[in-house]
């Protein structure tokens, strides 16, 4: 035994730092983790960084939010303002609003931190939204990432919840109006609505409990859930590895990119400070939520231009678009002696419900239609999935119409048009906007695919006109290099899958529906140029480059 220990003397580091590091490493195994993670490969593309922006915004939210909790008092007890903002001196207000004003005017750096926090919140949700759009339009939600898409969608909802609970805390007139709308929406739920409202507000609106309750949700429950979801989200990113854009040498079995350490980690770390810097500059130079303008909350006044923060805007917009009557039918009905406020219930819950339901289910919808259960690590270029891209744009336009409606009054005043006309137009667009978006997007995607095909087959137009000896004019087309051509031809193009009978030999109704949708998805697909077509177009072979494509096109 003693011989064995002398044969392999324990490693002793030479420097003090080395000994210290070795001590820690021997106990937590840091170098193993670093070796594993440091060599994880990430593909480099700017559109892959929005998730990072969201993560960094969240870290900034935690930091600035912690600062704000030192000074904020979520009490709805009444007090009289005696701080340094003169136009509110002596005004009766809640302690919550008073402490928000103190943070803004009497706490050193308080206003800056408040503005950092609020701008970061807006950026947090915005970067999540852009990240989701990127994931959707590139098809990154396909197997094996469906679950992570769901976790991401939950994160979006949690981010909105965090934002809304925070927006209400200062107890100023603006946030109080927002809460009043939420109260109205809750009360419009048949039968249970009034009870939920009473439980939530601890009595009749606004009561004296709501700010404290929202505060607990805002600083404890919602951030904890967000953190949990972020952990799940990142864990799955590690497990699944990152997706990559199509390109030569990239396939579903590899990841082409740079290892995390050291360059990528340095870039990512630096990017945190860039995001922080951008937010700090915005907070330093641009005011956000000037609560001192709005005054304390009081249920009687409502200010013009009252809107929620942008991410709740689409719900507010849907409420604004809802007509009071549909034809002769009063949208607000009195049935069995109870009032059913469909004029509030429908716009507040139905569009958001549809958007989120489709969002959560989309990976499974497409999987069912295409019967595609293979793993995908190479992304689609949006044009190469025309129907999906068109569905996404239809949803996006629908969202944007509602979003724009939340600012209908400002559209009216700033463009000098009638508010009623803005509402009528947006109502029309609410119905036909998504349809137009779908058609236009699909046509554009198909046209781009045809252009790609044309370029792959015949090369790029050079603009050089050459006259041949016998008098003919031709335009010289420059052939593409192989790397560029790969991008144009190396994609999957699913075909229509007709209905097939099940094991009993019956074509079920569900299968017929699937076949119908499959046809709708893929009937006008533009197939990528095949090696044979390329061969014919060029008249000389590129066997080495085209071999993998051949294999690919044979696989369907």
């Amino acid at each position: 035994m003693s011989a064995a220990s002398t044969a392999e003397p324990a490693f002793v580091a030479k420097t003090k730092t080395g000994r210290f590091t070795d001590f820690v490493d021997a106990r937590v195994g840091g170098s193993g983790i670093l070796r594993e993670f440091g060599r994880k490969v990430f593909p480099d593309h700017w559109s892959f960084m929005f998730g990072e922006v969201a993560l960094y915004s969240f870290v900034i939210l935690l930091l600035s939010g912690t600062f704000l909790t030192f000074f904020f008092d979520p009490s709805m007890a009444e007090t009289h303002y005696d701080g340094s903002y003169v136009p509110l001196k002596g005004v009766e207000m809640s302690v919550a609003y008073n402490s928000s004003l103190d943070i803004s005017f009497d706490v050193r750096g308080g206003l800056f931190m408040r503005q950092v926090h609020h701008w970061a919140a807006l950026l947090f949700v915005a970067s999540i939204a852009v990240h989701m759009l990127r994931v959707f339009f590139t098809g990154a939600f396909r197997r094996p990432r469906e679950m992570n898409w769901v976790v991401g969608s939950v994160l979006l909802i949690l981010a909105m919840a965090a934002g809304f609970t925070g927006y209400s805390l200062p107890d100023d007139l603006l946030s109080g109006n927002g809460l009043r709308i939420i109260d109205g929406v809750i009360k419009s739920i048949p039968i249970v609505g009034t009870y939920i409202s009473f439980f939530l507000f601890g009595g009749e609106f606004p009561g004296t409990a709501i700010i404290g309750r929202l505060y607990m949700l805002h600083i404890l429950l919602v951030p904890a859930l967000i953190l949990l979801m972020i952990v799940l989200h990142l864990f799955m990113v590690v497990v699944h590895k990152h997706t990559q854009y199509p390109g030569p040498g990239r396939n579903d079995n590899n990841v082409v990119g740079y290892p995390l350490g050291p360059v990528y980690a340095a870039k990512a770390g630096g990017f945190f400070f860039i995001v922080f810097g951008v937010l700090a500059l915005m907070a330093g130079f641009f005011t956000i939520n000037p609560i001192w303008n709005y005054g304390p909350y009081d249920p009687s006044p409502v200010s013009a231009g009252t809107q929620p923060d942008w991410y709740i805007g689409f719900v507010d917009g849907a409420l604004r678009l809802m007509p009071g009557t549909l034809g002769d039918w009063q949208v607000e009905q009195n049935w069995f002696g109870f009032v059913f406020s469909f004029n509030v219930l429908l716009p507040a819950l139905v569009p958001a419900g549809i958007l989120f339901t489709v969002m959560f289910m989309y990976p499974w919808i497409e999987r069912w239609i295409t019967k595609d259960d293979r793993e995908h690590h190479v992304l689609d270029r949006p044009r190469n999935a025309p129907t999906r891209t068109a569905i996404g744009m239809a949803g996006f336009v629908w969202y944007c119409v509602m979003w724009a409606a939340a600012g209908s009054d400002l559209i009216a005043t700033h463009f000098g048009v009638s508010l009623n006309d803005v509402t009528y137009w947006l109502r029309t667009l609410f119905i036909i906007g998504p349809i137009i978006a779908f058609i236009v997007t699909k046509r554009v995607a198909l046209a781009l695919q045809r252009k790609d095909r044309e370029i792959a087959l015949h090369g790029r137009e050079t603009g050089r006109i050459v006259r041949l000896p016998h008098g003919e004019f031709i335009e010289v087309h420059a052939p593409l290099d192989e790397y560029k051509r790969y991008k144009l031809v190396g994609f999957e193009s699913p075909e229509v899958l007709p209905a097939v009978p099940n094991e009993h030999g019956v074509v079920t109704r569900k299968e017929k529906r699937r076949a119908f949708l499959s046809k709708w998805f893929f009937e006008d697909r533009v197939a990528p140029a095949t090696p044979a077509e390329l061969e014919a177009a060029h008249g000389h072979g590129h066997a080495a480059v085209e071999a993998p494509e051949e294999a690919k096109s044979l696989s369907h």
Partner: protein
Amino acid sequence: MKALSQKRRHPLAAIALLLMGLLITGGLYAVATTVNEAKASTTTFSANDAEEGGKLFAANCATCHGMGGSGSQDGPSLVGVGAASVDFQVGTGRMPMQMNGPQALEKPVQFNDEQTHQLAAYVASLGAGPAIPEESLLDEGGDAAAGGELFRTNCAMCHNAAAAGGALTRGKFAPALEDTSGKHIYEAMVTGPQNMPVFSDSNITPEGKRDIITFLKQIETSGSPGGAELGSLGPVAEGLFVWIAGLGVIIAFTIWLTSRTS
């Protein structure tokens, strides 16, 4: 001269030239318009304001408001609207009206102070109505906090809590109140121009009106503690800013960060 000839092929030369041209045109225009204004303010003077006002009225207003201010199909009767109404409508350039529309728009003032005064004197002579407020009510020496409360309760639903203005139905709107003089604010409250309701003295006392003016002037002069105001338009402007400027800058950085590799 040598420097000039060297620089003339600089890529920014065209932009510099364009800027120079715009500045010169703009400058000349500004000079020309102020010359006009100066001329306008040195015209007619008269001993009898109401009589002179009557002549001005017949020449400029009677087409719509009728001879003697009795009204016509195109404009309401002005009997009993008072001097305050004239001082507001003419003094802010809303009258004479440029064209029919959802409401009369503010534009460069068409009459000088003397003429406005004469017109006001004439219309006041047609019937009793609200008078031009006394200086003591406009001295901005009221209670800003009380004025703020009155403003939020009575005015903010149209004019916005930060007095940035807001939309009304069918193309009408409540204007932003920045740069509106205390006198015009007071007159608007007592006469209810366009779509604005009248806030009589029993509704908001003259002292209350003074407080409101004090509040408005105070928020106008105290500036924005938090940086650029983005139009005081609330969350819509903020959302637009974070999407376009905030996210725009961040995207520029992401492109820069990933641009060195393939």
